[in-house]
């Protein structure tokens, strides 16, 4: 009898929740974003999900992670950031992480996930759009006037998905 093929292309990945506290992996992965988020909302509303590979030694850092802010309003969550470890990029882990994350949030009763688009992160936007996120409402750049001078405020756009 031939021995079975030894392959598990996706490794042994599993989504875990870890405390969203500064320091350790969390800071290594999200640095500034984490600090900003914690400055804005209480830690009780922050959730940090990581994708770990059980085949790697327990002390290894997670391969990817996501920072989420929970409501209000109730049943709504805001995706703050997504990150894939540099060494593990190109394996489609962002998609896997996002899929797991949405399932997890859905099981938690979350019905809507939003993401605030910042001008530069086109990669995240592409990912989110392919996962069914849509632009919440086409919100053209608002022109504000202060003391007569016209200032072009940056466009604020939200990607949103119903669960």
């Amino acid at each position, binding site marked *: 009898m031939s021995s*079975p093929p030894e392959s598990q292309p996706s490794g042994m990945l599993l989504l875990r929740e870890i405390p969203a506290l500064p320091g350790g992996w969390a800071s290594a992965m999200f640095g500034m974003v984490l600090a900003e988020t914690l400055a804005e909302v209480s830690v009780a509303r922050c959730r940090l999900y990581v994708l770990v590979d059980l085949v790697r*030694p327990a002390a290894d850092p997670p391969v990817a992670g996501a920072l989420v802010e929970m409501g209000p309003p109730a049943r709504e969550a805001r995706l703050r950031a997504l990150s894939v470890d540099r060494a593990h990029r190109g394996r489609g882990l962002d998609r896997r992480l996002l899929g797991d994350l949405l399932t997890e949030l859905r*099981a938690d009763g979350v019905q809507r996930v939003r993401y605030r688009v910042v001008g530069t992160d086109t990669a995240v936007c592409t990912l989110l759009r392919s996962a069914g996120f849509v632009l919440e409402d086409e919100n053209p750049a608002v022109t504000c006037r202060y003391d007569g001078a016209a200032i072009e405020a940056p466009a604020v756009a939200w990607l949103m998905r119903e669960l």
Partner: protein
Amino acid sequence: MLANDDDGRAPADAADRLDFRILGPIEVVDGTGTPLDLGSRKQRAVLTLLVLNAPHVAPLDQLIDRLWADEPPSSATGTLQAYVSQLRRILEPRRSPRSPARVLRTREPGYLLDISPDQVDANRFARALEAAQTALAAGRAREAERTLDEALATWRGQPLADFPDDSFAGSTVARLTEARLSALSVRAEAWLTLGRHAEAAVEAGHLLDLDPYREGFWALLMRALYRDRRQAEALAAYQRCRTLLSDELGLDPSPELRRLEQAILDQDESLIGAWPAVATGPWPVPEGETRLPARGAHVPAAPDPGDPAGLGPRPGEAGPAQAPPPVLAEYRSRLVGREPHLRRIRERLDDAVRGAGGVLLVSGESGIGKTRLADAAAQLAEEAGVTVVWSRCVEGSGAPPFWPWIQVLDALGGGGPGGTDAGDGGELAGVMRRLTGGDGAPGTDDPDTARFLLHDAVSRALSRRADASPVLLLMEDIHWADAASLKLLTFFGADLHRVPLLVLATLRPDPAEARQALTDALGDLTRQRGTERMSVTALTAEQVADYLHDLDPALAHALHDRTGGNPFFLGELLRLLTSVSPLHRVTAADVASIAVPDGVRDVITQRVSRLPEDTQTLLRVAAVIGRDVDADVLEAAAGIGGARMMMLLEPAVAIGLLTEVDGGWDYRFSHALVRETLYGGLSRLSRAQIHGRVGEAIENLHPGNLESRLPVLAHHFGMAARVGQAAKATLYASRAAIQAAARLAHDEVVMFWEQALAALDPHEPESAASRTTLLIELGRARRVTGDVIGARVALDEAVTLASQRGDDAAVIEAATVFGGVTLWNWRSYGVVDARMVAVLEDQLDRLPPGNDSCRAELLGTLGVELYYGDRRAEGQRHAAEAVALARRIGDHRLLARTLNNFVIAAWTPENEEERYRLAEETLTLPDLPRAAEIIARLHRMPTLLRSGMLADYDAELARCLRLSGEVRMPEIETQVTYAAVGRAMLDARWEEAERLATAATETYRHTSLWGPDCIYLICTFLSSWAQGRHGVHLAELVDAAADDANRLLRPTAVLAAIEAGDEPFAHRLIDRWGATVERDWTWQFVAWQWALVAARIGRPDPHRMLAELTPVADELVVLGTGCAAWGSTNEVVARLLRRVGRAEEALARAERAREIHRRLGLWHLERRSADLAAEIRDGEPSPGLRSA
């Protein structure tokens, strides 16, 4: 059908009693009347599907197919699971996450709402409608009206109003709408009875607005108008109806409606009472689309559906490419565990023969044996003279519409060139052409009507054919049937209870392809009389045993355990096993060790791949934990919370890969094959890492209480030894070994020491020292199990390692392991291990003075080592010195050990008395371990036997038998059994002697000690010899005795040659071997045997044998610790004396033997001695002289 309410369900807390409402948008109200927030639309859709199926399981695949048809199954399963989890929280807000769900349960193959029918408003409505109809029929119109008023008030709008366009809701909405129309018309009927004619007329008008094609509503309207004294309007209504039917459908009003018109014209008095019912049901045109084949569509040749579920080819059909091996084919031809099914099928066939047919739906998972059951049904039918017709549905869209029916018609003769003759064949051929699109349906362009006419034509043709002679129609895999075929089956099924035709249709309970058409068809069929469902489930262990002709219960259990009783898995496993060796040679161990068959692995892998990826990850971790999965360990090893873990594992439970262990929160893999497939799919490195995590999880979960988990920890860390867990692996294996030793689980002790050694990291700084220590322990443990060869390998290596490191203490420890308390010399007969003797002497030379206990151990061991050589006397002196040293030191453990050394080292005839005395002294020592006690007793017992103290011997034997059960060492067990063999020989209980000898040989073979074959030959030879069966063992004896290690067999072989009548051969054997008698433990027996030979053929010298045996003539003959025993030695002395012509002395000896035998009650020996005495008295020459 919905289950009854009185099924023993515990009455739920009022607040927990939920009310599910679908007569309007879906709504769930809790016990306090508060509607629950059911979440998103998809989530409500999941709930709706569950309500529609309640209280039955909604298969997971079906749910996914309905709601996420365009998503890959693995992600859809995850999404579905998330909704299920959330719904659970909504439906049971007070349930703790760890307690099992009571409302929304997981049950293979999916999920179910465990509620009573009364908890669904639609069911209450249906029940109310039924009650109202009964009340009205009994003349209680007021009650009927009240009941319906209440029931109709529960309608909150369109049923399932949130899902107007979803196909899954369609048929339910149609049925509920229909029920509402019925309720309205029954209520109007009640008003008529109550004289409220005008109201009834208005209601009939409303009903016709809803559905103008129902003649029942028209009849209601006409009667209401007539009774309201509006005859003209009543007649006008009839005309409107006639015009409508004629214009739109080209039909005339039914005879009943025409009679009603006539009655109105006649002002018939019967119009005052109840009027014979005009069907209120819908025009016979069901909703939905029709798939008629395109004209001239080509019908392909029968696709080969293969044999995906059955265990082999059906009779009369060529099998797949390679035929199964004959033994297997024989096993496959039997059908086991399906007796109740067959009984019921036989009853249904009998009914069909009597004219009452129907539909039998046989469901069961893939590989469960549905096809085999269908085969058996076919056979039953043929025996009953019923025509059997097969048809099969094919997966995918490769077959034309009506494919299964085309096959049926073809088989029944519709495929012939017919159409010209007027017989059945012609009619069948006609409908066949219509099904295949050869002929259009005559007379109509309306598709619905066309379909009705087509269905009707096929049904009539088949019914007529069955009326001629009964038919069994076997339709396989209808979960793959096209919608048109299913509709035809439903249509036909409605009539079958009065047609001698039985349809047996097989299907899978959780078909991945389950479509709305199938669910609808099954729903409709089940409501028809004559339809019955039966499920085919996995075989039990007993049934597996039966399947294999009661081959071997252990084997059957092993097979059942690995396959979960799935006949397909079982068949695959057997196929693989029997490709290696014939089934009768397959053992339970083979079953456990064989790799998972490819076919099974593919099936399982495919099922696993449909699960969410995180679930797959978790299942792989679970597979590393084992067949039984401790959820706490899994949770800790995966590092996720319990609630999330449960959520992730749910789909695996739903599709039957895992089962929840009753009452607990743990899991178990449904088949061992599932676990093995998952485990086998992991790379070596992954396995090691996960084992390490699992080991750590167990450690962390039970700090300070690891004793009961040492073997498990040793296993997991052992598997992780190469990924940094070597130290723990060795530690836990060692602790497990020590623990097992305390529990006398000797084989496990060996295993754990071996594990500890295997895990040892060779790069550790102190690894050589650790290795030496472990090797010594392993050697000791193997010695205990009787594996002297394995022990020696380990100890030799230990001595080498310790010598290299100059560690004398370790050398001594290793070298003296064999000097521990044992029953038997560990060397093969006649062997001296020169290297070990040299090591022991070297250590004795270098031992510093003062270390007397060490010296005693070395001397005692050396004494035993020297036993089989020229230096036996010297060894005896060493052993005696060891005893003296131990006495001086006063260490009774050491004394027990050295006494034992002496008893073995001094095992010669002259030392009998002293050995007996010292064995007895051993028994007086304090804290004597059980094993040592048995050994000392066994060393004492031969002396008792030799002196004829049978009662004492029996008492000792009984005690030893009892003790050996506690000690569980094969070596000791063997020797105790041997002691019973000798005793049975004395009593001439030959059968028992042989049985015991066989048993002892079996246990002896578990050791690698010298002698099982040798002793067995002696026992069986003596038994045959005593019973006068000569020559049977000659060849074996001569063969075995040729080996020097078995030289104690030589006189027996010669004796056998003589008894076989071949004296020249006996002489040649003596020429070849000589006739030495060693003065070792075999002396008395060997001397006795040679003496018997000498008395017959004069060789070896009878005088020499006389000199050897006369001094012990009063003793009984005993070999070793009693594995063979015979009567008084006087008898052989008598024979020798006769041989040398001293007849008088011979007679005296024979008489003395007889007297001893008589006194001991050894009747067969007494008779032999008496015969011998008589022969001597009569002066008959001894046999040898006679022939000379």
